């Protein structure tokens, strides 16, 4: 399916929910925050949040800042 992540649209296979998406991308769920179709998803709900074709996600993490 086609999903937009951080502004870039890509093809993803074998992705059903946020947990599997993060696995696919090699990201640690405990170290990121997710917006799914503009709604923030708490860590506890990653597995329960289904991803569909055409969805848009923002994945952010902490970086250095003042």
């Amino acid at each position, binding site marked *: 399916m086609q999903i937009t*992540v*951080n*502004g*870039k649209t890509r093809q993803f296979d074998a992705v059903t929910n946020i947990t599997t998406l993060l696995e696919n*991308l*090699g*990201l*640690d769920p*405990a*170290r*990121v*925050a*997710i*917006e799914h179709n503009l709604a*923030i*998803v*708490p*860590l506890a709900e990653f597995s329960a949040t289904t991803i569909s074709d055409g969805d848009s996600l*923002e*994945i*952010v*993490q*902490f*970086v*250095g*800042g*003042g």
Partner: protein
Amino acid sequence: MDDLIIAGRRFNSRLMVGTGKFSSNAAMVDAMEGSGCQIVTVALRRVDIDNPADSLLAHIDREKYLLLPNTSGARDAIEAVRLARLARAAGCEPWIKLEVTPDPYYLLPDPIETFKAAEILVKEGFIVLPYINADPVLAKRLQEIGTATVMPLGAPIGTNKGVRTRESIAIIIEQAIVPVVVDAGLGAPSHAAFAMEMGADAVLVNTALAVTPNPRGMAAAFKKGVEAGREAFLAGLGERRDRAEASSPLTGFLRD
């Protein structure tokens, strides 16, 4: 040195450290350790999914340091609130350094968007530390709606010019009912000491620690500066003397 208390929580350091602009994570950690700080600011940015970087969090011991996410990058209240909520969702305690800086030249904070965002975030239960220009009325309005501190800038971010806004900061300190943290523009330990001598409750330093070749040493120097300034303030500084003024007696009428 007496404890700093913000939102009912005690800290034994009055020096907060920003983690931006460091040449490496190791340099950042050196600065944090040298400073003795207990609060560090971090920012939120999109993960580069083609090239995910080493997570910053791997280098910050959450037992030792309170993570204070900032909303840098936000240009208006909506973006700031969104970033704050994301930070909270990422597992942070609900402390937020509210920073709304649409001006890309001087990175000066937008007072109106900052206030709007603060109102929303306070209601959502965040402990809000708003970064503002040294505007005493804005500071009072933010305190009124329940922000945990105010953080007036000493000089624009990254300029290392010291406490250029001292007159306004003095008024803010005089009128404050929450801790005042002087943030931005502190380029030398003497600047930090000066802010503390004025009666500021804490300072936040980033650029000065990131651009030096010796972050640990500079951070240790800032630590001393902050402590010296605070102790001088508590001990009661002598003031500059005004010139004596000759005037005809105002109290000559008293005869008793």
